[in-house]
C-alpha cells in the first residue's frame, strides 16, 4: 500500500460504513489504537544538520529503518533526538521520500555512495520514481561495467585457478593477451593470413616472360613455389581450426558461428583442388572456387575489433540499407524503361533491351558516366539528363540519413532493449510487491486467527505468533476483513484459488451431508453456509491448503449456527444443508469438531473434542470469551 495515501485510510474506513447495511455477517472488531498519542515532531540529527518531521510521516513505511523501531537504536537520550552519522545530502532525498512518496536520485551524487545510503536506511532502489529511474540504472550499469573491467584487468595479472587444458586453450584463443604463447599464436596466424592473401594477389601478376612463350602470371611461372606457400598456409589454418574446434566449450555452437564458417570456406578450395587436380572439365569450377580464398581476409576480423563492430552495425541497419536498395531499384527500373523506349527509334542504339538499359541508368545515376552507352535521340538526351540529376538526389540524400540512422538506430535499439528489460523486471518487482502486500493481509489473517485460536485455548504461555504489525497495517487489514464479511467471500492467493477450482471440478456427486462448492446452485451465501471439508481430500497431503481451510473453519466458529440437531460429530464436515437457505437466527456459536483438522496447536485438540455440539439453539456458556468477541448475527 502506498504510504502517501496512508493519510486517507481514515476516509476509506469511514466509507466502509456504506457496506454495513448490505452486509449479512457481523463485522470484525476494529484494532484498538493502544498507544494513541498525539502526532509529534521528531528531530533527526544527521551529522549535525537537523531535520524535523512528524512521527506519522516516518511511520508510513514501516519496513525501513526510520519507520520501524530500529531507529530507537540511534536515539540520543541527552539531546532527545535521533542521531545518524551519515551524509546529510542524501538524507534529504531519503526524507523527501517519506514526505512525498517518491524517491529521487540526485544526479550529482555518486552512485555507490547513494546505494550505500539506501541500503543503510533500508530502502529498495526499485522504488525510485520514473523521473530518475533511468538515470539511476544507467549510472549503475556504467559503474558495474567499469568495476568489471577493472576486475578483469586485475585478474589477468594474477595466476588463475587451475582450469582444464581445454579451457586454457579456449581462453588463449579468445584473449591473446592472457599468455605469451597465445600472443605468439595470434601473431603467427595473422602473419600467415597476410601471406596467404598477398600470395593470392601476386599469383595473378604477370611476371615477365619466359623466353619462347607469352607472358605468364607469376602463379603459373613459379607454380611449385606458390603451391608450397599455399599448402603451408592451409596447413596452419587447418591446424588452427581443429584446435579451436577442440577447445570450444560448445562445439555445436562453434561450428555454427560466422567465424568458423569463414575458416572452413577459406580452406575448402585447397582440399577440393587436391581431390580433383586432373579432371579438366571440373577445373573451370575449380577456378571459381579459388575465389573463395579471398575470404581469408575476413579472418582478420578476429584480429580487428573495428571490423567486428562494422559488421555488427551493418547487420543492425540492414533494413535501412534494404530500403535504399529498394528505392534505387525502383528509380533504375523507371529510368531504364523510359530510356529504352526513348532510344528505340534510333538506329544502332546500344539500348537493346530494358535490362541493357539498367547498366546505363546505374552508371548515370551514380554520376560515373563511363560513356560506353550514350543516348542519341533528343528525347533520350532529355531523359538522360533528368536521370543524372535525379541520380544525384536519390543517391546523395539517403546516405547522410542512413549514416545518422546508423547511430540513431544503434543507440535507440540499445536503449529500447534496456528499457524493455528494465520494464519487465520493474513490473515483475512491482507485482511481487503488490502480491506481497495482499499476501501480507493473508498472512496476518492467518496469524491473527491463530492468535485468536491460541487465546481461545487459554494457553497464555504460548508465544504470540506472527510479527506485530503497525497500526496503519492493522487498520488496513481490518478494512479488508470488513469487506470480506460484507460479501461473504474471502481473499485467497492465486495458487489456492487454482487448487480450489481444480478440486471442485474433480469433485463428483457429493454426499448429502457435505455440499460442495459447485454443485449446489441454490447455495445461498449466508454467513452460515460455510464450506465443507472434503472427505476424499487427505488433510496431510497439501498442508497449506488444509491449513487455510481449517483457518476458515475456525473463523466460522464465531457464527456457526446449530439449526441442525442432526449435526453429526463427524470430523469431516461442517454439515450445512443447502435447503434451508434463509436461515433464521443463528444465535449460538459453537466449536465443532472440525478443529481437529488443524495440524498445529495441539493444545486445541483435546479442547475441541471434549466439546459436544449443542443440540439446541441457545447461548453457549462454554465459550464466554467468544461471545464477547462476536456480534450476534441476525440472518437475513
Amino acid at each position, binding site marked *: 500500500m502506498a504510504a502517501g495515501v496512508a493519510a*486517507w485510510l*481514515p476516509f476509506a474506513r469511514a466509507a466502509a*460504513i456504506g457496506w454495513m447495511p448490505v452486509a449479512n455477517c457481523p463485522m470484525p472488531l476494529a484494532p484498538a489504537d493502544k498507544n494513541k498519542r498525539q502526532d509529534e515532531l521528531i528531530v533527526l540529527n544527521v551529522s549535525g544538520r537537523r531535520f524535523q518531521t512528524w512521527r506519522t510521516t516516518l511511520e508510513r513505511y514501516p519496513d525501513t529503518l526510520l519507520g520501524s523501531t530500529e531507529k530507537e537504536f540511534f536515539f540520543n537520550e541527552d539531546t532527545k533526538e535521533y542521531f545518524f552519522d551519515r551524509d546529510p545530502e542524501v538524507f534529504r532525498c531519503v526524507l523527501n521520500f517519506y514526505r512525498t512518496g517518491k524517491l529521487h536520485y540526485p544526479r550529482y551524487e555518486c552512485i555507490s555512495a547513494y546505494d550505500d545510503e539506501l541500503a543503510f536506511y533500508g530502502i529498495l532502489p526499485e522504488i525510485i520514481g520514473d523521473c530518475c529511474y533511468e538515470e539511476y540504472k544507467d549510472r549503475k550499469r556504467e559503474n558495474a561495467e567499469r568495476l568489471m573491467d577493472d576486475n578483469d584487468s586485475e585478474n589477468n595479472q594474477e595466476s588463475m585457478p587451475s582450469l582444464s587444458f581445454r579451457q586454457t586453450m579456449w581462453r588463449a584463443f579468445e584473449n591473446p593477451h592472457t599468455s605469451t604463447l597465445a600472443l605468439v599464436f595470434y601473431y603467427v596466424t595473422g602473419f600467415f593470413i597476410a601471406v596467404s592473401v598477398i600470395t593470392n594477389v601476386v599469383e595473378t601478376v604477370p611476371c615477365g616472360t619466359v623466353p619462347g612463350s607469352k607472358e605468364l602470371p607469376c602463379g603459373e611461372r613459379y607454380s611449385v613455389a606458390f603451391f608450397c606457400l599455399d599448402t603451408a598456409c592451409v596447413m596452419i589454418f587447418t591446424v588452427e581450426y581443429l584446435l579451436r574446434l577442440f577447445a570450444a566449450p560448445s562445439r555445436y555452437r562453434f561450428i555454427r558461428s560466422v567465424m568458423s564458417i569463414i575458416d572452413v570456406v577459406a580452406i575448402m578450395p585447397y582440399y577440393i583442388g587436391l581431390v580433383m587436380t586432373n579432371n579438366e572439365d571440373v577445373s573451370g569450377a575449380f577456378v571459381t572456387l579459388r575465389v573463395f580464398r579471398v575470404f581469408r581476409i575476413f579472418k582478420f576480423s578476429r584480429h580487428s575489433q573495428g571490423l567486428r563492430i562494422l559488421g555488427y552495425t551493418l547487420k543492425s541497419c540492414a533494413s535501412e540499407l534494404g530500403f535504399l536498395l529498394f528505392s534505387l531499384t525502383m528509380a533504375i527500373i523507371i529510368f531504364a524503361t523510359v530510356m529504352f523506349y526513348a532510344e528505340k527509334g534510333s538506329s544502332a542504339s546500344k539500348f537493346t533491351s530494358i535490362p541493357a538499359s539498367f547498366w546505363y541508368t546505374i552508371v548515370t545515376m551514380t554520376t560515373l558516366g563511363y560513356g560506353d552507352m550514350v543516348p542519341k535521340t533528343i528525347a533520350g538526351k532529355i531523359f538522360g539528363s533528368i536521370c543524372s540529376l535525379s541520380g544525384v538526389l536519390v543517391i546523395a540524400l539517403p546516405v547522410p540519413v542512413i549514416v545518422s540512422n546508423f547511430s540513431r538506430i544503434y543507440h535507440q535499439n540499445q536503449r529500447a532493449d534496456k528499457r524493455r528489460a528494465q520494464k519487465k523486471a520493474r513490473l515483475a518487482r512491482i507485482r511481487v510487491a503488490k502480491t506481497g502486500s495482499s499476501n501480507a493481509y493473508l498472512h496476518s489473517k492467518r496469524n491473527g486467527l491463530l492468535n485468536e485460536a491460541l487465546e481461545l485455548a487459554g494457553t497464555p504461555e504460548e508465544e504470540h505468533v506472527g510479527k506485530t504489525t503497525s497500526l496503519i497495517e492493522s487498520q488496513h487489514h481490518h478494512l*479488508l476483513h470488513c469487506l470480506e464479511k460484507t*460479501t*461473504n467471500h474471502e481473499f485467497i492467493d*492465486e495458487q489456492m484459488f487454482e487448487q*480450489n477450482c481444480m478440486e471442485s471440478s474433480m469433485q463428483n456427486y457429493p454426499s448429502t451431508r457435505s455440499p460442495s462448492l459447485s454443485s449446489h446452485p441454490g447455495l445461498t451465501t449466508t454467513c452460515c453456509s460455510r464450506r465443507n471439508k472434503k472427505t476424499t481430500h487427505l488433510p496431510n497431503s497439501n498442508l497449506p491448503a488444509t491449513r487455510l481451510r481449517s483457518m476458515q473453519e475456525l473463523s466460522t466458529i464465531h457464527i456457526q449456527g446449530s439449526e441442525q440437531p442432526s449435526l453429526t460429530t463427524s470430523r469431516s464436515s461442517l454439515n450445512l444443508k443447502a435447503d434451508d437457505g434463509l436461515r433464521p437466527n443463528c444465535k449460538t456459536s459453537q466449536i465443532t469438531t472440525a478443529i481437529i483438522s488443524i495440524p498445529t496447536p495441539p493444545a486445541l485438540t483435546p479442547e475441541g473434542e471434549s466439546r459436544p455440539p449443542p443440540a439446541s439453539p441457545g447461548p453457549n456458556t462454554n465459550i464466554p470469551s467468544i461471545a464477547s468477541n462476536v456480534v450476534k448475527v441476525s440472518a437475513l
Partner: protein
Amino acid sequence: MGAVMGTFSSLQTKQRRPSKDIAWWYYQYQRDKIEDELEMTMVCHRPEGLEQLEAQTNFTKRELQVLYRGFKNECPSGVVNEETFKQIYAQFFPHGDASTYAHYLFNAFDTTQAGSVKFEDFVTALSILLRGTVHEKLRWTFNLYDINKDGYINKEEMMDIVKAIYDMMGKYTYPVLKEDTPRQHVDVFFQKMDKNKDGIVTLDEFLESCQEDDNIMRSLQLFQNVI
C-alpha cells in the same frame, strides 16, 4: 522547414489536422499550451478557515489539521477529482477493481455535483460518517445507495452497488464468486428492507429496517475512533 514545424506541432497536440499553413499550426500549438497553463492555475482551492470548519463539523482543530495535511499531500490543488479519488481508493484494495464503488462514493461525497470534492465536502462527509448520529449515518448511506438521487432505492441501483462491492474482492476469492451471487445478495437485502414489498426502498423503510437490525447498529459504531 514548414513540414518539420508542422509535424512537431501536430505531434505535440496529438490531433489530426488538415494540412494548412504553418502559421495556423503554430497558433494552435501556442493556444493549447496557454490553455494547459491556465487550467493548472485555475483550480487551486483554499478551504475556509479552521474555526469555521470546526464549528460546522464534529472534529476538533487538531483532527482537522491532521485531515487537511493528508488531503493536501495527495491533492495539492485543493480539490479531488474523480480520477484521483478512484486512484486513491484503489490503493486500498489491490485485489480487485475498486473504481465503480469509488465512483458511487465520489458522487455521494460530491453533494453539489460539481465534479470535484473540496476539502469542506470531504470533511463534512467524514464528520457525518465518523461523528454523526445513527440517523445521519443511515441517511448518508441511503444517499450513497440512491444512485440517481431520486429519493428511492430500486433493485437496479442496489444491484449496481452490490456488484461494485463484489468487484472490489477481485478474482481470487474463497469460495469462488459466482455470477448470481450479487443478485442473491440483493434479493436478501430487499426482502429485509422493503417493508411494503413495492419493489423500492424509501428512506423511512430503510431507516426502520436498519434500526431493527442489531447487527447493523453495532457495525455503525465500529468506526468511531478512526481519527
